[in-house]
């Protein structure tokens, strides 16, 4: 079977700025794909291209055997692409349960309200927000909002989850909790693309990693391969020779 998601020469331009420049890679079914790179490398922009927020990109994106380039975000969602945003975006005046029910209702399975509520309750329990169901989403703390964002995405039972820095701003205990949730997600067979700046986390949890810099893919491979790649070290730290010396001295 072919890869779940195939990107072929995908570029996103904002006027003269090329935010993503000819990205080409595959995401295999059931894997967690890390997407890393320095700030401004185009990671979030690439996710926006995948789920249709930036519909006007060049190149081709194929999802589950179907070309989805040019589709609206809601059409991508119906086909099974869910998104957890970097800056959490809860529906503040709705209850936590209603937020997650929205995810279950309108996603891939298009459930009725009653069934969606049940799925939402299960999903909330699985991310550890079961006791907050009746609260207004706006009243949660940051870590809880991050979990809510993830729960809303997961409740749609997606084929592909786009997770944008879900670990940012969490303390070590919360990060550990969240990584537990990701292991659970992987067991359910959901494919994940995760953007992450916490290197130990992304190296730990990812099957493969793609590295972007200035909108271009500069490396791709297993976490070990990527870590050892001089171009990656250069992108993060500057001159590779200096960086290697710096790392040795540091150690």
């Amino acid at each position, binding site marked *: 079977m072919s890869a779940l998601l195939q990107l072929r020469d995908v570029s996103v331009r904002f006027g003269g700025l090329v935010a993503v420049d000819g990205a080409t890679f595959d995401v295999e079914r059931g894997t967690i794909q890390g997407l890393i790179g320095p700030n401004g490398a185009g990671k979030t922009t690439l996710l926006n291209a995948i*789920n249709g*927020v930036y519909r006007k990109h060049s190149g081709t994106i194929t999802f589950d055997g179907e070309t989805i380039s040019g589709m*609206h*975000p*809601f059409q991508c*969602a*119906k086909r099974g692409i*869910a*998104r957890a*945003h970097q800056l959490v*975006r809860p*529906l*503040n*005046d*709705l209850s936590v349960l*209603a937020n997650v*029910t*929205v*995810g279950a*209702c*309108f*996603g*891939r399975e*298009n459930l*009725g*309200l009653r069934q*969606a509520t049940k799925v939402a309750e299960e999903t909330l329990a699985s991310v550890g927000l079961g006791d907050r169901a009746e609260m207004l989403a706006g009243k949660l703390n940051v870590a809880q909002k991050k979990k809510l964002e993830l729960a*809303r995405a997961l409740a*749609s039972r997606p084929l592909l989850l786009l997770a944008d820095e879900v670990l940012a701003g969490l303390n070590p205990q919360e990060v550990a909790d969240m990584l537990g949730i990701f292991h659970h997600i992987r067991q359910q067979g959901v494919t994940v693309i995760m953007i992450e700046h916490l290197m130990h986390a992304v190296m730990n949890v990812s099957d493969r990693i793609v590295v972007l810099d200035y909108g271009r893919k500069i490396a791709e491979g297993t976490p070990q391969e990527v870590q050892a790649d001089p171009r990656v070290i250069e992108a993060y730290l500057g001159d590779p020779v200096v960086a290697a010396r710096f790392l040795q001295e540091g150690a």
Partner: protein
Amino acid sequence: MRRYRLPFLPLVVGLIAILAAVPILTSNPSMREELFLVFMLVTLASSINIIMGYTGYVSFGHIVFFGLGGYFAFYLMQVQGWHFLAALVAAAIPSALIALLIGIPILRLRGAYFALATVGINEATKTAINNFDPFGGAVGMFFNFSIYAQYGGAKAAGELAYYVMTIVAIATIATSYVIKRSKFGLSLMAIREDQDVAMVVGIDPARAKVVAYVISAVFPALAGATFFFKNGIIEPGHAFDLLRSIESLVMCVLGGVGTVAGPIVGAAVYEWLRGFLITNPTLANFQLFLAGLLLLVVVLFVTPGLVGWLRNRFPVLRSYVP
């Protein structure tokens, strides 16, 4: 755990039906007139709540559909000689179609731009009707008194209009309730909270908003048709009166935007208050001033409105009062 839930809708419908029967049984025409107006205001406020409260789009010129419904029905009765009930149903159709045609472009606008566009549409429609001869132009249209003969005289026609207005109000509340509790309603509220997120989770906002707008346009059209049938005269300034539009927004805000019960409570309280002020000799001159002051107080200190405030104060109410 299963919570016992009071059947809100049958309760409210029952109360309105009982209330509506009182002036008929006691043959009290002034109370009937008063209730006719209250039911009309409930209809206007509840229907505006569907687009403003649930979807988050403040339709400032929503009265345009009241006027259009009134004009279409009046034309069918006066010029084509239709029966009121036939004209009532028929008038809702072009009003809904116009809402569809207007809604598709203007619902792309957000915030203040949408509100302004709806005011513009109301004013443009008023001007157009002012110059539209089949509808009587600036003079408008009026019934010959004999037209009420087929309903058994003016008094019987007035009663028929009263019954119809009661049913329209009940239908509006029922629709508002069903939407609020439905998957469609959830999609509207998701759009209200964050349209971009709604789109990412799989909602087509453009379609949902237009459907909500058309639904919220049908009931004012029915109310307009009924009101001007009873009134016997229709002219542009009265049909497309922006002040009435603003008043229905005020009732919504007063009662609680986005709740089913809010616009009902808001309309009743507002009308009761106005009646009180107008009949009080010292306060009569300050009627609009006090109404404005009240709005200011609500917006500043009780932002969620009366029903919203009660729901926040006593969370138990949340499951009883939608």
